[in-house]
């Protein structure tokens, strides 16, 4: 399954949601796709029962905007430098570790992070983030082993 995380009203923060939306458009019958805000219990419930999950979120590290990072968190924690921002208390990295600790993490889990540029108010993605979204869609489909990629 694919989970797109982010806030559609904070510019490039919506990149993860946009990837999920496009993946669903491309392979409507092959993958279960969910979009949600970063609320820990929501995220843990979202991947409940899935053997494998791909989580897509926007990141803000020092990389070039539009860069797509891939982290296999099946057996190791997410680097906290890229994923710091959460609305409150638990970020995506902590949520993954919490789920791992209580045995509610899918057997396989990969996180894609799209480097954002603008995280201000607004519903538009920046140019680099849009390019990042396009690349991330292909990478997610490849990761999921989808056949009908075009």
């Amino acid at each position, binding site marked *: 399954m694919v989970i797109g995380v982010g806030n559609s009203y904070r510019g490039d923060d919506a990149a993860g949601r946009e990837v999920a939306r496009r993946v669903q458009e491309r392979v409507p019958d092959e993958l279960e796709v969910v979009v949600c*805000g970063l*609320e*820990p*219990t*929501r995220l*843990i*419930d979202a991947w409940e029962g899935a053997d494998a999950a791909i989580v897509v979120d926007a990141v803000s590290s020092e990389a070039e905007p539009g860069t797509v990072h891939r982290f296999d968190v099946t057996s190791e924690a997410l680097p906290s430098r890229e994923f710091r921002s959460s*609305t*409150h*208390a*638990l970020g995506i990295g*902590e949520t993954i*570790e*919490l789920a791992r*600790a*209580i*045995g*509610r993490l899918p057997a396989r889990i990969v996180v894609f992070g799209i480097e954002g540029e603008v995280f201000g108010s607004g519903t538009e993605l920046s140019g680099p983030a849009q390019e990042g979204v396009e690349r991330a869609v292909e990478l997610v489909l490849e990761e999921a082993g989808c056949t009908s990629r075009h």
Partner: protein
Amino acid sequence: MSTPTRRTIKTDYLARVEGEGAMSVRIVDGRVDEVELRIFEPPRFFEALLRGRSFLEAPDITSRICGICPVAYQMSSINAMEDLCGVEVSEPIRILRRLLYCGEWIESHALHVYMLHAPDFLGYAGAVEMAREHADVVQRGLSLKKTGNELMIVIGGREIHPVNVKVGGFYRAPRKRELRELVEPLERAREAALETVRWTAGFEFPERAVECELVSLAEQGAYAIESGRVVSDRGLDVGVEDYDGHFFEEHVERSNALHSRRADGVTYLCGPLARYALSADRLSPLAREVAGEVGLEVPCRDAFRSIVVRSVELVYACDEALRLIGEYEEPDAPAAEVEPRAGVGHGATEAPRGLLYHRYELDADGTILDAKIVPPTSQNQLAIEEDLRQVVDRYHELTDDDLRHVCEQAIRNFDPCISCATHFLDLKIVRE
């Protein structure tokens, strides 16, 4: 002449509190010289941002001050507007408001008790470390929080920053059957909350007492949540419209938050300890019974035991939500008509962390001319500093690391919401 021994203990970023702040403690010759909470999150100009906006926008704008207690901001602003405009809402709307607020209490208290505060008592760095050895306990906390979220979704439209709330009522009133679907999860949550009280009451407590005045809202016949009079354990009993005559705020240079005092200069505390001290007799029989079972006295002045009080309030919030669902009848209209009036309106509610006061001045067409918002954490800041001073006095012989840990725990006892207060934490202990 001997050289004084100086110690400085400092925490630059206090973890497991909401927002950013720092704490510094200076100890000279084993005695506390100075305790400071510094708040360096940028001041929040919400009060100024509200000027010139419509009175109808206040609930949605102010809810953005906090992602943990948005309902508190919505309800305090609504109370102020309806107070001024002379609006009476129907019983179903009153029920829905209290029910939504119960959802926020469950969500916020479950988060604080399980994820932020319990690791202190059990000796873990955080919730993730605690979860590795207590998976079932953390799972119980997550389930409780989820039930709070579900209540918020059904009534508020989503779990954070509800979109269904307006001055006068709601955009859409839920159907009875939608609320009935919450009964089973709430009954499970109530059982989990009872387990939470028994679990937290078994922690070790250092047996201390806060000495300041305790202030909360109080209502006849109900544990105050979304309305009430402002009362204290020293005899204060005034309407919300008189709040400004009894409390004042001052700016302190080190902090971006205003500090509140009683008008006579006395430090006071609001939040779970104050509510429980002033209204424990109005809790539901089940909540009172479990509090009695674990020996939680009334009043409880031990800030470390606030985790037990919060747990009892979790039982109450689940119990009360079930009662409210049982009484709910679908309203004819989801909201009352509201016509703006020129003047000043006052509103206060009990946010999970304590009393939240709003005051607005409107012109005749409903434009906000002036706004004042006093969140619980800024009201509690002086009490937190006073309490820290006593904690350091008692534990100054500990090593710096251990003392830092006790101080951080002492701050978390008050569940400070620094994002709300700025208009906060790193901990520094100086020994001289």
